[in-house]
């Protein structure tokens, strides 16, 4: 049993070593990013989504529900994202 555990560790170590160098370099890059920039990444992601929604064609965001009532989804989607942006700015 001990032998099996030892070989499992040896195999795991060999595979881990294949990835570790590359992983450490990437981790170093990530660590170098200031927290304010990291927060900016989240905000930019939300802003890009807002831009995408604004650019969507009208027929994809305005639809007729059963019963004939028309629903405009774009303003709701934009408001939802705006609230999220405020939350990320506060916390």
């Amino acid at each position: 049993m001990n032998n099996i555990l030892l070989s499992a560790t040896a195999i795991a170590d060999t595979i881990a070593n294949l990835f570790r160098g590359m992983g450490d370099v990437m981790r170093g890059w990530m660590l170098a990013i200031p927290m304010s920039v990291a927060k900016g990444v989240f905000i930019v992601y939300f802003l890009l989504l807002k831009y995408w929604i604004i650019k969507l064609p009208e027929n994809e965001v305005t639809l007729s529900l059963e019963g004939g009532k028309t629903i405009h989804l774009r303003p709701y989607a934009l408001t939802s994202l705006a609230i999220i942006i405020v939350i990320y700015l506060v916390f």
Partner: protein
Amino acid sequence: MPWWAIGMSLVVTDIRAVDMVGIAGAAYLYGIVLGNYDWLGSVPVMIIGAFLFIPMFWRSKVSTIPEWLGARYNQSVRTISAVIWGVVTAFGLGVTLYATALMFNLLLDLNPKVVVVSESQIVREKVVAATDAGKTHDFIFLKDYDLIQQVVEDKDPNLVLIHTEKVGNTEMENLMYSFSENEINAEWGKSMMDRARAPTWSLMYSIIIMSVLIGVYTLFGGLKAVVYTDVLQCIVMLSGSLFVLFFGIYKMGGVSEFISIIQSLGPRAQDHFELILSVDTATPHPWSGIFLGLGLVLANAYWFGNQNMVQRTLGAKSEADAKASYIFVSFLKILIPFAMVIPGIIALAHNPNITDADKAMATLVKDILPTGLLSIFFAAFLAGLMSSVDSALNSGATIWTKDVYRKFVKPDASPEHLLVVGRWITGAMLAIAIFFAQYATRFESIYDLSQTILSLFQSPSLAIIVLGMLWKRATGKAALISLISGVIFAGTLMWVNSNASVPLFQVSEPFLYVAWWSFVLSVVIVVVISLMTPPEPESKLKGLVYRYE
């Protein structure tokens, strides 16, 4: 079904008992960073889903995601995907049942009790770790020996452990044992638990009772019944959870008092009001993992690659209802961290000495809510439980019945026959879930466990769905190889991380990074192999690839 009913059903299905226990427990340990799972992991993703993925599924008139994969790629992809999701659903149910039983036992005060008498916080923590009973027993800590008799009479503990510094000349009674700090180790802990009086009520009893009750409930209700029951459950659950938030803050003395209590806890709570944590954080939630693993992969996989969720919108009255339901949910999900995460932090302010974080929410509501209001919370909790279990059972049974049984065993099966088979499959899934539930105790946080399971399978599934929908060059062979190798790669990363001398990932639960890297690998495999294989016929792709009619 109308958009508002589907929307409320999606919310209550998503907020499972696992979340009520697990998210609050994780928030107790790590703070508001857990809010990312809704604010980043749901809101933007629901909007992307509403305008991009959900309309595509709805127009293709499929009943399951594997069925869509079969139409877009080939039947092998459909079958493997169906089997994977069927298995994942059963395992996920196990975690849900465990979380539910944990909360159920705590709220009804069914857990066996262990009393530890010691002035030292470190000694108390060592005892809990050594006995390995933090999840299955309630620990009562006393600093003063004189209080033992009263506690023994009131709580009827199964074991009383007394630090030698407190014993003096006192005579030891039955089930009372003294110990010194030096002898605390796993062997001592095990021998003490062996000597304890056997508990009269096991966690497994609760798991089995819950399974039978909900199994019966689910067997006799279809998707429509599930959705309309969910509407009522959503109202009860959200109002119950938000009540805990407001009442909890009121009991703390207001928002500023609550914040100052948390800040006074020192380093363990210094980041409890930070949404974005450094890459080298000691928590499983560094910003890089949250953004890449959760925001770009797991969240998308969950909301439009998960049969549990997508099945709701496939039953919508119209495409407009399907889209509107997702936008509606994006609003409701903004509220969820206030109902689930902040109460976990309130629990920390209320009692920083809870030994098992997953008991934080239950401890909070039991301590602060008057008896009458406690029943409201209990109703909210049962609502979440019923909804999440019946939804998982319903979608799991649909996949096994339509994508496996009807395809391979009996292609000409009548609807009545499929209904009977679906009920047998529901029973089998519950049995697997009960079996798996007993292993859930091994993880520090239930939420991390459920995310770990999902991260193995969701990323490769997402990769083939996204590329299948957005890139008409993606081929069936590429998707099949990508799906299989992505799952193997994710499993390998998990295995290597826990078996290597030095863990591969420098984070306690690496599910976010595993999800990201298995997604990247799956995307690369689809792209490379697709370019090496003949393209799919154009006639097959119409209506299945975005803006390709």
